[in-house]
């Protein structure tokens, strides 16, 4: 078994290595006719740019995107600078240089990678998946009898912030940097999944398709690991199946198929304000222009946030969304599960959490208010502040850096729910409902707690569960996503996630069940 696992790791690393090397490989050659097409498509009027490109890029062969993209961005920046200096604003090119480079790169791939998409897919994704499964599936045997499987979590480099963890951190952060800020380097990756994209939406893949596909792949593989690790715990198995279903069907397949059917791209489960650009002008316009389905989406989006989400939270707690449906939660519960113990439990972190997450919520609401105001009054500023610059700031700071680079990149260091705990405005909103008007609670089983601390250690949301349990108090916290792991790891059967009557949900106690009845009454009456 160990040998199979080691072979698995080797194969996986090979796949990962090939994947990571791709941005540096491949040959690209932009031919004249493609360039002319792009110039017309993008309505490029800058003769400086075209001349520069003609001279330095068109017809030349490049290896890897790095060289090519630096030529393109140089040409673009120089052209723009010159036009601004000469006040020829009409000629300025507004396409971002990384976007331009991706566009050109995507159409000028010539070498082995662009021509052997299937094989290359297999050499990266394919063997990555095979390797990972070879490592994971033998755990059915190596982990022994079913039960809690946390042996050695704090002895292993990967799960105890050792060098492997830092390597994973480095890889994830770099990946997100490419995704958000350097999409031109993802061109080779897009080739790998072109056939899949074409079969779904009819279009070649962009870097977001790569991301979506990879997201589903990673979640599926890591879900296998969850199934094995928690095979004694039906709650975990059902929940994992649920997040996987919503990710693959709702977040990935349906939007792609909608595009094929000439409908707007939309993820029906992605609720505002997590879906922060739902009310952005371009989105509203596109929805309003798409006839019946567009209108339906618009109404659905509003009803989802204002009615469905809070009503469901009332009945089931915010877990129905955060750990059963949401994509961010889905990744956190699969890829992130090995890192859940790193969320800080200190009171200080809790303070930071409340400031940050509510701050982001306020930010999102204010931004959306400005957006809607601008939309209906057809102005571009509110109190002299440009709406679009606030939107750009949010997209960059919150949408990309916080949710992506930090939210996922920092899994191995700060735990798997950094975004959900500190940043997600939807979670903040659901949290209010859960805290003040909900049937959900984690019941503490009388006086059975032995203060061992397993629950707190493995709470991904950094809740000091033990602090409540050892006082015999139920856990009613706005940040709890109901992952159920505290209950799973408790060696004394103290915790149960349940939806019950609101009355008695919060039960402050001083003297715990099991002691003198009179004393309990005397001290606990409140």
């Amino acid at each position: 078994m160990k040998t199979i696992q080691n072979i698995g790791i080797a194969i996986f690393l090979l796949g990962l290595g090939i994947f990571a090397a791709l941005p540096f490989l491949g040959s690209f050659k932009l031919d004249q006719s493609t360039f002319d097409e792009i110039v017309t498509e993008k309505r490029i009027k800058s003769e400086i740019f075209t001349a520069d490109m003609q001279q330095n890029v068109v017809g030349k062969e490049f290896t890897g995107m790095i060289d090519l993209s630096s030529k393109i961005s140089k040409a673009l920046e120089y052209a723009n600078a010159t036009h601004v200096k000469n006040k020829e604003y009409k000629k300025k090119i507004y396409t971002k240089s990384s976007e331009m480079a991706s566009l050109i790169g995507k159409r000028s791939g010539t070498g082995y990678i662009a021509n052997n998409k299937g094989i290359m897919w297999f050499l990266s994704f394919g063997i990555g998946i095979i390797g990972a499964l070879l490592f994971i599936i033998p755990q059915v045997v190596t982990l022994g009898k079913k039960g809690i499987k946390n042996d050695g979590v704090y002895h292993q480099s990967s799960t105890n912030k050792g060098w492997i963890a830092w390597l994973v951190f480095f890889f994830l952060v770099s990946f997100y940097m490419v995704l958000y800020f350097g999409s031109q380097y993802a061109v080779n990756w897009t080739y790998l999944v072109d056939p899949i994209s074409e079969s779904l939406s009819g279009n070649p893949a962009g870097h977001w398709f790569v991301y979506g596909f990879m997201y589903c792949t990673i979640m599926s593989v890591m879900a296998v690991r969850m199934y094995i690790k928690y095979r004694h715990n039906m709650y975990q198995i059902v929940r994992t199946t649920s997040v996987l279903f919503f990710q693959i069907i709702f977040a990935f397949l349906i939007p792609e198929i909608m595009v094929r059917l000439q409908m707007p791209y939309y993820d029906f489960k992605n609720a505002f304000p997590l879906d922060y650009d739902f009310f952005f002008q371009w989105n509203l316009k596109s929805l309003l222009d798409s006839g019946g389905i567009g209108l339906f989406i618009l109404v659905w989006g509003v009803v989802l946030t204002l009615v469905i989400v809070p009503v469901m939270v009332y009945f089931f707690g915010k877990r129905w969304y955060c750990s059963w449906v949401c994509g961010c939660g889905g990744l956190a519960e699969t890829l992130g599960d090995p890192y859940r113990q790193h969320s800080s439990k200190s009171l200080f972190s809790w303070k930071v959490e409340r400031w940050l997450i509510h701050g982001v919520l306020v930010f999102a609401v204010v931004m959306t208010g400005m957006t809607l105001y601008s939309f209906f009054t057809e102005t571009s500023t509110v109190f002299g502040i440009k709406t679009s610059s606030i939107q750009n700031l949010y997209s960059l700071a919150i949408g990309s850096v916080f949710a992506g680079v930090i939210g996922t990149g920092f899994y191995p260091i700060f735990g798997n729910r950094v975004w959900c705990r500190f940043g997600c405005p939807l979670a903040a909103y659901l949290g209010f409902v859960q805290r003040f008007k909900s049937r959900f609670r984690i019941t503490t089983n009388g006086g059975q707690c032995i203060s061992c601390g397993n629950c707190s250690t493995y709470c991904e949301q950094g809740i000091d569960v033990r602090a409540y349990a050892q006082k015999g108090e139920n856990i009613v916290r706005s940040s709890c996503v109901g992952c159920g792991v505290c209950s799973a790891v408790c060696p004394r059967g103290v915790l149960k996630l349940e939806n019950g009557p609101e009355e008695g949900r919060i039960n402050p106690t001083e003297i715990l069940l099991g002691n003198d009845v009179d004393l309990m009454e005397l001290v606990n009456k409140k």
Partner: protein
Amino acid sequence: MEHIVIIGNGIAGVTAARHIRKKSDKRITIVSAETDYFFSRTALMYVYMGHMKFEHTQPYENWFWKKNRIELVKAYVNAVDHQNKKLVLADGNFLNYDKLILATGSKPNKFGWPGQDLAGVQGLYSKQDLDQLEANAPDKETCKRAVIVGGGLIGIEMAEMLRSRKIPVTFLVRENSFWNGVLPAGESAMINEHILEHHIDLHLGTNLVEILADENGRARAVTTDKGDTIECSVVGLTAGVSPNVDFLKESGIELGRGIKVNRHLETNISDIYAIGDCAEQHEGIGQRRPIEAVWYTGRMMGETLAQTICGNKTEYKPGHWFNSAKFLDLEYQTYGWVFSERGMKENEQHFHWRDDKEKICITIAFNKDTKQFLGINTFGIRMRHEIFDRWLTEKCDVNHVLEYLKDANFDPEFYSKYEHKIVSTFNSEFGTSITPKKKSWKRIFSNA
């Protein structure tokens, strides 16, 4: 300001301190020699197994003590001088008190086995024991085999710990079946099976005779009364614990096995109290033993004594007995009294049910004549403490318990339910025709 000094920063001492602070402004000092801060002894195993780091076993952050004005002194108390109301510390200092709370816990038993003090032989009680185990048995290359002597709760924890590092373990248990002084036969048998499934070499009905040394004075093997010699690198002595009271021998405080206390947790000397593992009731309360070395009772004594210290003189009146443990992967809970065959009371009758596939079983004890429900043991099913506490208080009969068993289930959502199987087995054994009632929130929350 009255100065309350507590010796021992375990659950008993710390609970007392917290509750005294809540109710009063008294000066509070905790003296303890083992660690700087309170930690959960019950979690020591998880540190060795790598589930947690040692700091995770500390229920309060380090700033907690200062903020709550609980002074911490790390020192060993050599003697108590009650005439002058002062403590003599091992570092030569003295500490005066107005009231003294002894919460000094336990120490592992050693029964004078030859070789019991060799290197590589150890118990598992303190943080130091944990560190020692880390040194003695860091991996299966250094520790080729470990022998554990004594089949109690700590013994099986130690076996589980060592197995988590793939160290071969031989487990010597004096009884003919694991923990059968406490558990009824069916349950004890199930645990025997479970231990073997975990590749622990279980020797039942076997006593340790001698621990043999190698040329460096380290344990190299043990011999048993069955005539076996078992090669090993580490010997774990886990044959129970006894109160940690040796430093009080000359103090004038009345000692039995532990520190003798009355129902108000007072010792024979005024202003000195004892709580937790080290306290010994003159007579056991109800069916309880005079010394109760478990977590919950330490906490309850702390809660109670704080009332007395703060002027509301309160008797220690523990409610219905409850406890829990985990044997490898098997969770165990108990409410009320279920005695083993050895300790069974005259009118006690048992209903035992065991699932045919999973390692799940329950035993319900009731009065043969009146059918009054006496207690329940469950393995692999979690039960609701509050419900059983209520049923015990209301002296429900056993049929009632079975009928409403679903109200008491505390397993996570989506788990398989066993009430129907349990009840139908009961029906066929006792000729009853009980049908289990659907779970009702109303009943669960109707605080009777």
